[in-house]
């Protein structure tokens, strides 16, 4: 039978494997991009990445603005101290501290600024900064409090240093010899910052800082790209502001991941491993988001000019770099072994659902079987009833037929009898009177009847 042909663009590999002999020439590699972007488990992540891209676009610009403001403030302080030539080396030093210790630069810069103002040279300020970080990590005091105490100590007031809980000799404190004081602090708290950074909490901090730096860098690139087209900046900011409404959901999810990781860091190694992977995965999603946002930005900025297009391309390169970094971090998360726990939990739930479905199906089969048996019994009963009725009706028909036959036979006999009577009547009318014949007939009749009265022939005629 001739059929209509329907040509589908694609089909699932497993199900239609046997029916593709005619159309196998095609895209075999397409499944990679589909799976990496669109698998059911990642549909939520894709949407999350899309919304996160919006948030990064907004936060990145804001972070870049704040970072630039803080950097400008420190640079001005150094310039005022006659240390303008050290602005970039100080920035590099602060960046190295940020990456190695996981402390945000917006916390390090004010601290360095305070120390630089009290000390007056960057070399000593660098050492003091390092010491302050060790004391803060070892004593549990905030970096701000430690830096303030050190700064005052360099200014001549060592009272604050005694409240650090460092056990500094009172004589040394009263002497005001900062070299001796700082040496004693270094002897007590030396290396504490590095130790803190190597803990799980420290690792998470470093990851978070790295992600924040990516956000800042994106914002920097974005702003630089818009620098020569200032009249469009406001329009773009307004449009990004309109998109902020979509960013809340993923912003919350991301924000929950970080504090949750920070809290669970003190509980168990396994929990920290899982949450580290969650943060890393969030970072990787951010890489995707940056990619997407960079593409969107490129489309928008493409109409503005070549410089803006270059800025957008730089942003895209940054996004690729972030994606690559996220990928490497995800490899590390795999080595930490977090996937198995999540998969085990998920598979348990799925297995339970499967068991319930199996039992429900089995019950349905049993019920279907019972209904089938009942239907069969009802059918058999109906057939039996039909046969019984048929037999009854057959019997009745037979009985009726018998009656009809008898009646017809009786009618036939009556007709024959009538026929004979009529024949006799005709015969009698047609026969002439003959006394001898009648006499013999009467004798015969009497003889048959066995009665007297039989007359002799002589008496009658001789």
């Amino acid at each position, binding site marked *: 039978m001739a059929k209509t*042909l*329907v040509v*589908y*663009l*694609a*089909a699932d590999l497993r199900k239609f494997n046997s029916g593709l002999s*005619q159309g196998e020439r095609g895209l075999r590699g397409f499944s990679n991009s*589909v799976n990496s972007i669109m698998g*059911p488990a990642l549909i939520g992540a*894709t949407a999350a990445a899309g919304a996160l891209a919006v948030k990064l676009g907004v936060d990145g610009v804001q972070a870049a603005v704040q970072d630039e403001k803080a950097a400008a403030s420190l640079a001005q302080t150094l310039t005022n101290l006659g240390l303008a030539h050290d602005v970039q080396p100080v920035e590099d030093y602060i960046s190295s501290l940020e990456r190695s210790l996981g402390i945000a630069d917006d916390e390090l810069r004010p601290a360095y600024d305070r120390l630089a103002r009290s000390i007056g040279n960057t070399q000593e300020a660098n050492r003091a900064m390092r010491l302050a970080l060790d004391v803060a990590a070892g004593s549990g005091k905030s970096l701000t409090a430690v830096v303030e105490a050190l700064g005052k100590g360099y200014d001549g007031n060592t009272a604050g240093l005694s409240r650090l809980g460092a056990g500094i000799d009172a004589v040394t404190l009263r002497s005001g010899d900062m070299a001796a004081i700082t040496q004693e602090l270094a002897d007590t708290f030396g290396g504490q910052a590095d130790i803190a950074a190597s803990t799980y909490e420290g690792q998470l901090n470093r990851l978070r800082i790295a992600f924040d730096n990516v956000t800042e860098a994106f914002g920097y690139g974005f702003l630089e790209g818009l620098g020569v087209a200032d009249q469009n900046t406001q329009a773009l900011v307004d449009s990004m502001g309109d998109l902020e409404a979509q960013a809340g959901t993923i912003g919350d999810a991301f924000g929950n991941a970080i504090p949750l990781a920070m809290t669970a860091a003190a509980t168990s190694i396994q929990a920290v491993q899982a949450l580290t992977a969650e943060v890393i995965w969030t970072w990787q999603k951010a890489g995707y988001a940056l990619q997407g946002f960079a593409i969107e930005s490129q489309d928008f900025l493409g109409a503005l000019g070549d410089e803006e297009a270059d800025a957008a391309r730089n942003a895209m390169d940054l996004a690729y770099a972030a994606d690559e970094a996220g990928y490497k971090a995800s490899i590390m998360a795999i080595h930490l072994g977090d996937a198995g726990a999540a998969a085990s939990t998920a598979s348990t739930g799925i297995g339970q659902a499967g068991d319930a479905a199996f039992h429900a199906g089995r019950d349905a089969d049993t019920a279907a079987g019972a209904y089938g048996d009942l239907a069969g019994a009802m059918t058999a009963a109906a057939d039996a009833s039909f046969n019984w009725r048929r037999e009854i009706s057959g019997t009745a028909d037979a009985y009726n037929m018998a009656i009809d036959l008898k009646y017809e036979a009786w009618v036939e006999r009556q007709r024959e009898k009538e026929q004979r009577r009529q024949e006799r009547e005709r015969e009698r009318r047609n026969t002439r009177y003959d006394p001898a014949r009648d006499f013999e007939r009467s004798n015969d009749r009497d003889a048959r009847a066995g009665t007297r009265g039989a007359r002799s022939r002589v008496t009658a005629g001789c």
Partner: protein
Amino acid sequence: MASTARMFDARVEGLNRILAAFRALPKEAAAELRTASKDIAERRMVPAWRDAAMQAGPWGERIAGTVKARSDRIPAVQIGGNRKAFSGGASVNMVRYPSDKGDRGRAAKGARNRMPTAFGHGTDWIGNVRDYKPAAMKEWADAVDRITTKWNAHG
């Protein structure tokens, strides 16, 4: 028995999982995917198949006239019909396969049912339609991305 013959341009591992995941989204998402898929089919698949059908010999024009896009979650086109399309009473469905394969395939030498000689060796017009696939697949994947992003954000 099925009333249509089916053919697939590409195999995608996990495609059924992708389509099944759409059940988690609102119905409007599936409707939007159908609209997008039909649009892709009309712009990319229908012209390609019509051009190919015109190479099907004397029957090509009638066959090309029956090519139309279907409404489905995956872009698809339908070729053929059961109405009388030729003076002898044949429909497009009757001539589609013979015009493609001729006396090859099912009607090869030794087959019980021989192909009418009018079809010759066939023109193989069905097997040569492939140029639209990369662009169509890319466009469909982008549509899926767009729809899921939109509806996940709303949901």
